């Protein structure tokens, strides 16, 4: 292979072409994570005049006793679980609808892109307005339907605030799941359904025995992406509730941001970043494992 000068030159060009991208990625993704690992071993806050002082695993020990951290982790888990489950159900419904031929399908597809394309922070404000306790349209509609007879404070009460956030998040990200599932649906040959129908299967049976198994990779991919995004959800919470009322919607991300920006506790913030990162990586690794397994299953069946 030494003699393969052309190949060698090509490889050199290859490294040259990819180097800028790798450099930027390393700067923006790897450095901050690595830096957080390092910084998490120091105490650097107002108590140390913002100078880093080595403190070993003190920050992690502190985390164990930090009720606010565990509460935020719980909130994040609740938010993530509920919103992703709902998004999956809605996303599947939308995908099935968009997979049908009907007049105006192009319009429906465009409409479905709108929530995905708009800035979360801005539309969070729109949802806060919709859930407004005095003039909000949700309260008004519930009045008119006779379901309530006095105004409900949606964002001022823990459970309802969480509910409102979930609704806004489902609105924002269902289209993404729907589009990925739609791509999966379109790749399933209609022959399979016809053969199954000739075998006497009902549409519901077909859905369970053909659609769901063949869609497994897309479902897992959508779940993977959504899990990572949802676990780090920030914009929506920041503009809609700011983590309130009384920390009942405070997610890990909001807590990290407050620790660094408001309390200027950089060392502890770095420890929070590190732990969140590790939790995320573990979850992603598990998902990736199932993903590779499902892909093998599918190809094995064919």
């Amino acid at each position, binding site marked *: 292979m030494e003699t393969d000068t052309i190949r060698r030159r*090509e490889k050199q*060009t*290859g*490294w040259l*072409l*990819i180097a*800028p*991208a*790798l450099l*930027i*990625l390393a*700067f*923006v*993704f790897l450095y901050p*994570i690595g*830096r957080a690992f390092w910084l998490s071993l120091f105490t650097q806050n107002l108590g140390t005049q913002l100078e880093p002082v080595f403190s070993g695993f003190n920050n992690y020990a502190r985390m164990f006793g930090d009720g606010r951290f565990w509460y935020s982790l719980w909130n994040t888990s609740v938010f993530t679980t509920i919103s992703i489950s709902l998004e999956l159900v*809605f996303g599947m419904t*939308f995908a099935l*609808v968009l997979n*049908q031929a*009907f007049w105006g399908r192009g319009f*429906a597809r*465009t409409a*479905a*892109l*709108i*929530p995905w394309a*708009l*800035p*979360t*922070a*801005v*539309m969070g*404000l729109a*949802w806060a*307005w919709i859930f407004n306790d*005095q*003039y909000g*349209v949700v309260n*008004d509609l519930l009045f008119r339907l006779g379901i309530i007879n006095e105004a409900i404070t949606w964002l001022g009460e823990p459970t309802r605030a969480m509910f409102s956030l979930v609704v806004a998040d489902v*609105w924002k990200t269902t289209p993404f799941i729907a*589009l990925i599932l*739609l*791509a999966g649906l379109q790749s399933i040959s209609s022959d399979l359904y016809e053969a199954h129908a000739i075998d006497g299967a009902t549409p519901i049976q077909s859905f369970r025995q053909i659609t769901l198994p063949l869609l497994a990779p897309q479902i897992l991919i*959508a779940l*993977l992406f959504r899990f*990572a995004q949802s*676990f*780090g959800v*920030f914009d929506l919470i*920041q*503009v809609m509730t700011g983590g309130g009322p009384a920390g009942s919607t405070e997610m890990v*991300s909001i807590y*990290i*941001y407050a620790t660094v920006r408001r309390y200027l506790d950089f060392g502890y*913030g770095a420890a929070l*970043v590190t732990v969140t990162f590790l939790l*995320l*990586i573990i979850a*992603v690794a598990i998902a990736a494992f199932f993903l590779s397994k499902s892909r093998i299953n599918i190809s094995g069946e064919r």
Partner: protein
Amino acid sequence: MTTMPTTFLKSLNWKKVLLWTGVIFLVLFCLAPLLWQVLTSLKTNDAIAKLPTVYFPNSQQLTLDHYLILGGKFLRYMLNSAFVSFTSTLICLAVGAPAAYTLARLKIPGEQIILACVLVVSLFPYVLLFLGLLELVKFFGLGNNYLSLIIPYTAINLPLTILVLRSFFQQLPKDLEDSARIDGYNTLQMLLQIVLPMTIPALVTTGILAFIFAWNEFIFALTFITRDTLQTIPIAISKIGGASAFEIPYGPIAAATILGTLPLVILVLIFQQRIVQGITAGAVKG
């Protein structure tokens, strides 16, 4: 004998009803919040605060004041966002396309590892990055400098750009590149003069996605840019609410929302097909 066709007809109708219920729900669900902001932005303050809620305002209840109140400052924010998004998109394509080409064709060692890293990195929530980036921004003195946004925006869009373009490059017939080599192009000339011109549709697709993501980014813009005149749309709009302590100015927020998202809505309307392609290519092919 007549029951057969009737039940058949019934089942057909039932399916249609279900489908159209789904379609109407989908469209309403997706558009209602935005339409509500449109309506709010056009109502006078009195109409906004009127109970029960006004859904069909009369002519006295309609106004453009909320738009006018935003003034020239808002135009500035729009330009800020446009500049940052556009620049970072261009850099992202300029840096991402060669990288994608390397990963598609040039067979460097460690290709699979690089690909896996690119994929994993695209899953990192930005909140895990801002602390380290904040230090870098301070170190290089980039606070209140657009570079502190352009570089991270380039980076967050790189994984998708690389994955989508790579899959496009792989689909190009290899003969063309062989032919170009025999014609005497070197790798760089070939990339610029043969490969990229044939990839323009893919470049447009990924460019649109990158532009949208950059336009919408919140946490970096919130952290690294503190000077009012430099702010981007998402920050500027979210700060309108904080301006008055007593009453949140819903009208101006709604008007700002409409103006601030108009470029995105236009992009979606024009490039609907391409955007869908880009999203699915990025997620599924990776």
